[in-house]
């Protein structure tokens, strides 16, 4: 009576634990270890269905004296009797398939002594069972598919399995199936999310390229600004980054798209080899606002569009188009601003020659607190000394 109560407690404990584990291998290991301990058996293991090979991988087998099968070394084919017995409903249909005890074999062999086909199957089943030295086998199904098979070895005290113990195992195996399904679902969802993220990033890159090709002087600019921005962000203290886990993701997209507003500016102005007229300049200065407008319909791009909208603001308030001052400028925009300036100075422009790297660095330092946020300049200098820029 006491033992059964223990099982119940243990089951609810394990069920709670299992739901938290999203790794099928780890889960199997944990279950096998606790089964071995709780039932006091010499060893136990499980076969876990592998969708790709359509075979059952022998995931774990623990115990000192038992057959300790190295991880990933063995499998069992779906056609083996020990699997067939549970997966094929037409085989021995009158037998309860919730579990199988090796002690059931003699009676079954007697019963089918005049049915050579079934008798043959039973001998093969016996062979299989002895191969894994199982005394008790318990299956776990998910929607009629055999997902897992527990094989349980001899008890340390050599006693028979009680009804309570067998019951415990059948409940446990259905819990394991649910947990494994849960783990798979979690894994699938995670993969789906990553795929979506990749798709989004590829789309954004394509869009960034579309701006890039318009301007012959800035080829590869968006990509480089993104690279520099990401390096700088590494050296910005985390507590300054709003929701910093996704900050980097947002920054990447914002940096790629920071000049997207230039789509609305005629190519001959963008590529003009001489100085721009006041009118032309006013138009060019609108590109951050136009970029933000383009991104406006995308709800998820709120933070990203801040980076686009304010990347030409200056720390001293003399930037454009909004004349924001100091900390009014979002960090995401301040980072892009430095990265953008760095790339502009290191590239050939129609109106001036390329600057040397140490000249550019000097220029950026001298503009700390003027054009650039001091926090970002400090981070930029760290990337320079780490030779990441």
């Amino acid at each position, binding site marked *: 009576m006491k033992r059964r109560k223990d099982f119940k407690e243990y089951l609810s404990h394990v069920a709670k634990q299992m739901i938290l584990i999203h790794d099928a291998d780890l889960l199997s290991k944990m279950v096998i270890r606790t089964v071995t301990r709780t039932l006091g058996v010499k060893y136990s293991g499980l076969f876990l269905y592998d969708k790709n090979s359509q*075979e059952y*991988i*022998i995931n774990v087998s623990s115990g000192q004296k038992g*057959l*300790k*099968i*190295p991880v*990933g*070394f*063995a*499998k*069992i*084919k779906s056609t*083996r009797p020990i699997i067939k017995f549970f997966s094929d409903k037409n085989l021995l249909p009158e037998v309860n398939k919730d579990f199988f005890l090796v002690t059931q074999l003699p009676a079954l062999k007697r019963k089918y002594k005049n049915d050579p086909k079934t008798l043959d199957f039973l001998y093969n089943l016996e*062979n*299989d069972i002895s*191969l*894994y030295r199982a005394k008790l086998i318990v299956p776990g199904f998910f929607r009629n598919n055999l997902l897992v098979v527990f094989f349980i070895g001899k008890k340390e005290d050599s006693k028979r399995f009680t009804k309570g113990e067998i019951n415990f195992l059948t409940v446990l195996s259905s819990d394991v199936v649910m947990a494994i399904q849960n783990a798979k679902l979690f894994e699938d969802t995670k993969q789906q999310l990553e795929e979506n993220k990749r798709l989004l990033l590829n789309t954004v890159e394509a869009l960034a390229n579309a701006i890039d090709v318009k301007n012959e002087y800035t080829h590869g600019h968006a990509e480089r600004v993104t690279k520099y921005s990401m390096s700088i962000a590494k050296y910005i203290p985390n507590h300054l980054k709003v929701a910093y886990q996704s900050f980097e993701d947002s920054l990447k997209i914002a940096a790629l798209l920071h000049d997207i507003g230039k789509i609305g500016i005629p190519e001959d102005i963008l590529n003009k080899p001489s100085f721009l007229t006041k009118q032309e300049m006013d138009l060019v200065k609108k590109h951050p606002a136009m970029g933000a407008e383009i991104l406006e319909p995308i709800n998820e791009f709120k933070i990203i569009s801040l980076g686009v909208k304010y990347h030409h603001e200056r720390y001293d308030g003399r930037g454009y188009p909004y004349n924001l001052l100091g900390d009014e400028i979002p960090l995401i925009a301040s980072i892009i601003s430095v990265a953008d300036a760095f790339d502009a100075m290191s590239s050939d422009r129609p109106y001036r020659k390329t600057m040397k790297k140490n000249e550019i660095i000097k220029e950026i330092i001298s503009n700390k607190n003027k054009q650039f946020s001091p926090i970002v300049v400090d981070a930029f200098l760290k990337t320079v000394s780490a030779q990441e820029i």
Partner: protein
Amino acid sequence: MRKKVLIVDDEEEILAFMARFLKRLEIDTATAISGEDAIEIYKKNSFDFVLLDIHLGGMNGVDVLKILKKLDPKVRAMIITGNISSDLKTDVHSLGVVDYIQKPIDLSDFKEKILNYIKQ
């Protein structure tokens, strides 16, 4: 008379498992953790069969087979491998390899093959 098999694998756990597995089939075993080890053991004993992991830490499996073949022209072996198609580019049949088995292995297959080969 009981048959004797030499098991060569660079993983201790696999050696232990296979040795125990064969023991239950009433087959005597010796184990070698490396190719060099295998050659030393083979020089001092005679075996009916060799089980060989093709990917060994030091000396590779094919080179081991070449030396075993020199020591014993009648050597017979079964290769255990993770990937058959990429592993068996060289002609190993002339080196005494009668069969191979791919990991993860089905233990029933394994048992059947072993019993079949040591009977011969």
